[in-house]
């Protein structure tokens, strides 16, 4: 590529591809779609946390005029859902195991009729003993939620940790490095504490929505709101016994995903109803269903012990955590594994033991939510580190720097890190944060009842599915169209985060055109190669590599074709301003414009100007001891929170949140800042506001009047600091960012509150009531 002085497309603040449609109101989500003759779906859900269904009669609902179809478990072949264990039925069979579990569904001519039909379904329940606490659930004699737990299919990558004995413990994962008991016995200082985190809702503004239709050919088409269309595709097909070639999924604009739109429920229900009724069927979850019907961030209880030398070296970490996964192990145990992998953070600790348990209860189902279990364990670890720093009289950043990963470090899973293979920008994130906020800026201050303080926390996450899957795969196609623009076919999804804009930049940079000359094709599982979807901060890294390979391959072919025409070696050609021409200015009249080349390729040469690329990351599985290389591209985040606490009311005002993130090469800083800022605010909500409170498995509320999320007046000053490094295996050195932002935020805020008040609250969210109670206890001492 010599001779090119084109300004790089990388690093540009390119507005997201959906920007103009969004500001003009022309964007279109699944909730906005409608078809002639469309029916409306509605679901009957369990009012009991655990009960046997002794009678289910849908006769009166079926007879109601305007009702086109009613389905129950009898209409579904015996097949189950679940990422970790396949035991969640689409519609309950004989037993319901949590509030909100779907039992039956109807399709009717309008929403009123559908609601009326639901009211006509008769169900008799026989309540069963239930359990709502992870400790009670694992105590002897606890009611069993799955008495036949061993009969269901399980995820092979996790099977080594499955607990076959009867009980509510689904999986127990252990990661062991060295001898933690010996290390703690010899440590100069040992700190021990328990922490607890709560269930929270993703609160996607666009609720789950799906519209299914039988095409004239007899094939099924499903429009749905998801970032993971291929995952939904395979679940719907396997659940309903549809041959994979008989279903295609098309995804319009998506009003957020945050991890939760990858476990089928509504999507299969509307498909089933459309098959029954032979008419299009649309369903949209209510906000209440978004709380009770989709799965929440898992609530976790953590006990942790940290051993430190007197000069601030972390000698040992012993952590045990219990994840309340609810009655079904969808992503629950995968989340437990991922949390265990991330639990020791970006620190080289010679002796580590992490034990994570996934425990069934009759609370609402646990599910995936940005961070995938990592914010929970990081809250505990970073809290303990703060306790240690204070006790040692060391600046919290210094303690972290002293132990942080660098070239040659070894992780808790005994993975050896080298800068040759991994981008290791952790120490740089601390440095950059320190440049912006020197330790002298961290003075705490009091003004009457208002106490100000500063707190820090760090975290590590991974780009890609890593140890949760044998192969994390994506494919992409790029083709040159007759007008000289390029069309990108990728299954990578924009759910708001903006990866597809960065992918367009990758294509433009690789080929040598402007981003405006690259168009992303619509996302249809028929048209694009397989892609694992918007999940695990993987798309820029995994899909980005596939896209880059496709773009490079097409560029190579274009130059070869032009070389034949222009009688110049392909190595001496460049693509500039939409024209292929000689790199040598003296030969600048030897050129062909891309539209002419496209015409020539097809009509003269007889060749399609199209190329395919694929990328797959493999070999990340862990062994039984939790040893292995679960992460290839590490995401590092170091954050600083400044808070003001009113000790009379217990209210916390976050004044600023600064976040330094190692993102590898910054393809699109605007998109990256958006990811960092958005996760900071979600982390702030997690720290201070949000909780799906349940009483015996029944959520309180649950609506946006009672469930509080941060609004614009709550927004502190946000300071995203992009730390550019080079990820050796990433496209142009890039890697993901989406989840890392949320990982340390709650811990940083909790640490800032401690710095302001001297009081540490170890249970999230840190509500005024909890903080006042802790302050009162402190005064009593």
């Amino acid at each position, binding site marked *: 590529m010599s001779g090119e002085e084109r300004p790089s497309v990388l690093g540009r603040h390119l507005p997201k591809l*959906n920007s*103009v449609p969004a*500001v003009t109101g022309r964007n279109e989500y699944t909730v906005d779609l409608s078809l002639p003759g469309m029916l409306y779906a509605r679901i009957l859900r369990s009012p009991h946390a655990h009960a046997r269904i002794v009678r289910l009669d849908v006769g009166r609902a079926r007879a109601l005029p305007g009702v086109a179809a009613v389905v129950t478990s009898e209409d579904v072949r015996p097949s189950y859902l679940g990422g970790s264990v396949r035991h969640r039925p689409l519609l309950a069979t004989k037993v319901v195991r949590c509030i909100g579990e779907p039992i039956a569904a109807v399709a009717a001519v309008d929403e009123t009729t559908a609601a009326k039909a639901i009211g006509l379904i008769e169900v008799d329940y026989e309540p069963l003993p239930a359990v709502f606490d992870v400790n009670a659930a694992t105590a002897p004699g606890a009611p069993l939620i799955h008495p036949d737990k061993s009969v269901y299919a399980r995820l092979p990558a996790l099977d080594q940790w499955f607990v076959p004995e009867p009980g509510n413990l689904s999986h127990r994962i252990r990661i062991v490095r060295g001898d933690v008991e010996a290390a703690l016995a010899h440590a100069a200082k040992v700190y021990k504490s328990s922490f607890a985190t709560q269930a929270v809702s993703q609160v996607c503004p666009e609720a789950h929505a799906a519209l299914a239709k039988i095409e004239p050919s007899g094939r099924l088409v499903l429009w749905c709101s998801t970032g993971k269309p291929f995952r939904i595709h395979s679940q719907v097909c396997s659940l309903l016994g549809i041959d994979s070639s008989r279903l295609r999924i098309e995804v319009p604009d998506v*009003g*957020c995903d945050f991890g939760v739109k990858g476990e089928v429920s509504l999507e299969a229900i509307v498909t089933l109803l459309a098959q029954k009724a032979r008419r299009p069927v649309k369903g949209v979850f209510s906000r209440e269903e978004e709380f009770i019907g989709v799965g929440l961030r898992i609530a976790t209880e953590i006990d942790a012990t940290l051993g430190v030398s007197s000069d601030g070296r972390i000698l040992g970490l012993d952590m045990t955590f219990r994840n309340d996964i609810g009655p079904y192990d969808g992503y629950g145990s995968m989340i437990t594994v991922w949390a265990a992998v991330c639990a020791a953070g970006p620190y080289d600790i010679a002796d580590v033991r992490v034990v994570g348990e996934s425990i069934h209860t009759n609370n609402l189902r646990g599910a995936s939510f940005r961070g995938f279990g990592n914010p929970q364990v990081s809250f505990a670890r970073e809290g303990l580190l703060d306790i240690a720093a204070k006790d040692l009289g060391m600046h919290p950043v210094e303690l972290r720097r002293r132990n942080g990963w660098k070239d040659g470090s070894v992780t808790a899973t005994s993975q050896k890190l080298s800068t040759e293979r991994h981008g290791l920008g952790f120490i740089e994130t601390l440095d950059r944060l320190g440049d912006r906020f020197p330790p002298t800026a961290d003075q705490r201050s009091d003004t009457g009842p208002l106490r100000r303080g500063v707190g820090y926390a760090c975290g590590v996450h991974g780009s890609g599915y890593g140890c949760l899957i044998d192969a994390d795969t994506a494919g992409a196609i790029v083709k040159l169209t007759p007008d000289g623009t390029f069309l990108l076919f990728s299954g990578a999804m924009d759910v708001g985060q903006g990866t597809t804009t960065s992918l367009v930049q990758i294509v433009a940079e690789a080929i040598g055109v402007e981003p405006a000359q690259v168009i992303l094709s619509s996302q249809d599982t028929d048209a694009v190669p397989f892609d694992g979807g918007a999940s695990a901060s993987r798309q820029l890294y995994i899909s980005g590599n596939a896209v880059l390979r496709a773009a490079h391959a097409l560029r190579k072919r274009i130059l070869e074709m032009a070389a034949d025409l222009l009688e110049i070696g392909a190595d001496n050609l460049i693509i500039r301003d939409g024209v292929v021409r000689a790199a040598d200015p003296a030969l600048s009249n030897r050129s062909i414009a891309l539209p002419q080349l496209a015409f020539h390729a097809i009509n003269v040469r007889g060749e399609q100007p199209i190329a395919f690329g694929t990328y797959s990351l493999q070999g990340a599985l862990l062994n039984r001891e939790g040893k292995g290389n679960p992460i290839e591209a590490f995401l590092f985040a170091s954050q600083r929170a400044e808070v003001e606490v009113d000790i009379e009311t217990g209210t916390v005002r976050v004044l600023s949140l600064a976040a330094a993130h190692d993102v590898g090469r910054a393809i699109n800083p605007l*998109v990256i800042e*958006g990811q960092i800022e958005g996760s900071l605010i979600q982390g702030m909500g997690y720290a201070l506001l949000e909780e799906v409170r349940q009483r015996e498995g029944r959520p309180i509320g649950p609506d946006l009047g009672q469930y509080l999320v941060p609004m*614009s007046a709550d927004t502190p000053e946000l300071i995203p600091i992009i730390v550019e490094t080079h990820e050796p295996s990433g496209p142009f050195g890039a890697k993901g960012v989406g989840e890392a932002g949320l990982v340390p935020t709650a811990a940083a805020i909790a640490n800032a509150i401690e710095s302001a008040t001297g009081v540490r609250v170890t249970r999230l969210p840190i509500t005024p009531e909890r903080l006042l109670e802790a302050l009162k206890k402190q005064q009593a001492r």
Partner: protein
Amino acid sequence: MTASPEIGATREVAFSLNGTDVRVAIDVTQTAFDLLRHDFRLTSVRSACDGIGMCGACTILVDGRASPSCLMLAIDLAGARVETVDALAEGERLHPLQQAFVAKGALQCGYCTAGMLLAAKALLDDTPRPTREQIARALTGNLCRCTGYAKIIDAVETAAREAKS
């Protein structure tokens, strides 16, 4: 206030919708949200809270004031000047607020954007030079789960500044 109307009764109302005079028969219990989104098929009027006024996605301008359409009855639109985001641009020329939202990265999934823009427009029409705090307060009924709000506030500030110069 007149005597409470009967459920199912219909009335005819006339109002201006995005600059066009409209006259339509409505159910007296129908919300403005339902009328605009379903009867007029203005899908830019969205909802995230099922009509309890907590998300701002259904914000419209009624005589220039930002109002959650889910909490208004359609009948109360009678005689009013009603605007949705669909009429904010002049043809293909984006309103300064729209331009600033694009340039500043003030949107991600885009679901809340229409309501956010209308709340911002009402603010700037009333207070052309708002402080960041005034902007944050004016938009605080509009839920955004993606951006963290800072870039939205930046965009409104930018639009206000550019309108001044």
